[in-house]
């Protein structure tokens, strides 16, 4: 329900939902967001090896243009980029646009099926996480991705009110990455036990630590490996 309303351009047709003020992570992020989003043509290349590898360069993302993209670029300006990689299109949007943009995609562009929500962790980046929505439109037979970047501890508005399927998918992202989805009806761990420490799919999560702790407590030895 946490509908983000502080986007650069006022969102079109508000469908009568109340505008909550759950903007808790607001001011600093807002200030930092636009520049980060601007220098983002090759987002995936950012992490460990910013420079292109030595071998013959593979395919690179190319700008993606279509009527839909033009429309939204016009509407959102610098908060939104559109690229295409190996024939797969994706938007890179500012975090602040998130719930509105997703809602627009569903209502106006018929992306009525949220395939997946996931995340990627880039520990060396300032904004550590990519959150990715994979969307599909039955009417257009088109698959796109929407990406946004957030910093550690920053929350993302939940998409449960847009696609009911987001419920478990967001819980899994929370479970694995510790990304909070604001407005999620029941954000708790889903695959891991409730008492689990840490978020395993973060890159800085040592895979052995849980195991070692367990053997220390239960078997009294240093390491079971």
């Amino acid at each position: 329900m946490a509908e983000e309303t502080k986007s650069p351009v006022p969102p079109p047709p508000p469908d009568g939902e109340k505008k909550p003020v759950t903007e808790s992570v607001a001011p600093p992020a807002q200030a930092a967001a636009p520049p980060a989003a601007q220098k983002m043509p090759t987002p995936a290349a950012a992490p460990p090896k910013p420079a292109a590898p030595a071998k013959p360069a593979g395919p690179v993302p190319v700008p993606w243009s279509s009527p839909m993209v033009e429309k939204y670029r016009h509407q959102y300006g610098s908060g939104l980029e559109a690229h295409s990689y190996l024939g797969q299109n994706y938007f890179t949007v500012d975090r602040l646009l998130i719930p509105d943009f997703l809602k627009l995609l569903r209502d106006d562009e018929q992306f009525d099926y949220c395939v997946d929500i996931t995340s990627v962790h880039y520990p060396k980046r300032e904004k550590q996480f990519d959150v990715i929505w994979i969307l599909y439109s039955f009417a257009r037979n088109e698959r796109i991705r929407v990406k946004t970047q957030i910093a550690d501890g920053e929350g993302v508005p939940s998409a449960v009110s847009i696609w009911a399927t987001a419920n478990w998918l967001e819980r899994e992202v929370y479970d694995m990455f510790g990304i909070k989805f604001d407005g999620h009806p029941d954000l708790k761990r889903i695959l891991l036990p409730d008492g689990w420490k840490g978020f395993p799919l973060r890159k800085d999560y040592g895979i052995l630590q849980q195991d070692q702790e367990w053997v220390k407590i239960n078997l009294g030895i240093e390491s079971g490996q």
Partner: protein
Amino acid sequence: MNDRENAVSNLDLETPEKPYLDSNELIINMGPQHPATHGVLRVILKLDGEKVLGTECVIGYLHRGVEKIAENRTYTMFNPYVDRMDYVAAVSNGLGYCQAVEKLLNVEAPPRANYIRVILTELNRIASHQLWLGTHALDIGAMTPLFYTFRDREEILKIFEKYCGARLTTHAFRIGGCQYETYAGFEKDVKNFLTFVAPKIGEYEELLTTNRIWLERTKNVGVISGPDAIALGVTGPVLRASGVKWDIRKAQPYANYSQFDFEIPTGKNGDTYDRYLVRMEEMRQSLRIIEQAVNGIPEGPIMAKVPKVIKPAVGEIYHSIEAPKGELGYFIVSDGSTQPYRVRVRPPSFVNLQALDVMVRGMLVADVVAVIGTLDIVLGEVDR
């Protein structure tokens, strides 16, 4: 939108629907050890008598951290792991993964490899549906179809065994094509299987399709409408039974499915019976595909030119296939090294299972069992 959100939100144990006569509400734990939860699924049921007021699924008992494992293996080494997710449709898992990596590498498997892939994947779809039918019927109380389906599934497993040595977790494909050439007599075996199994499907249908009790147990049970199914991200036969004619094999053909002639069966009511009919018809359509593929299988190489050490360029890719359970997707992020930076599996069972709550509210305990069966979940894939 609001009621839908309400429907998937979790159990509200505080505010029970007040019945006229004061009766106790029962909280029952179904699973993780329960004959009808198909593995280690735990469903917490809130009951009013036998009526289900709400459910909450507790999953993760079989979580092995497949996605984390992937980050510590090379692309090639991770390939066998995906077989262990949906272990009754291991070939499909392997196909999805191999094709995703191929896409990332921007290579294409040669035609002959694609034919072999299609044959094996469709065989696997039949095997998966057979296993589903047997267990589903057993859940509803008909114990005999289980043995018939297992008897016939055996023939498929024999072909797998002859082809790659493994029966269940086959690891049949490699990135870039297939590792093994077909064995001598492969085509004959497959053709024999086609003639063998076609009447058997009729045999299953004879036991169930017009059986009064079966009809009563499955008609109007676990109904989910098309829009609801889309909103919940449900895919595969469950979506098609709700009347949405969507199959990735047709919508966004992969391998060489575009060359084959087959129908997408759909249902009308989105109930358990329609899902049953859709899957039965899917088995027949798979037979059609296999028949065309095995008759048209070309000669040629079975491996594309793939470097010995697989190092895709920096980038990310999403590729999905129509697994027996629904849309099985792989989202792979490469950082240019030999190991994937991130592999995300979009498991159909996991997403479909989410619809359980919507489908069983207001129904009876016996329907929960039927609906779990009809969703055709595999816990290895739900929990990964």
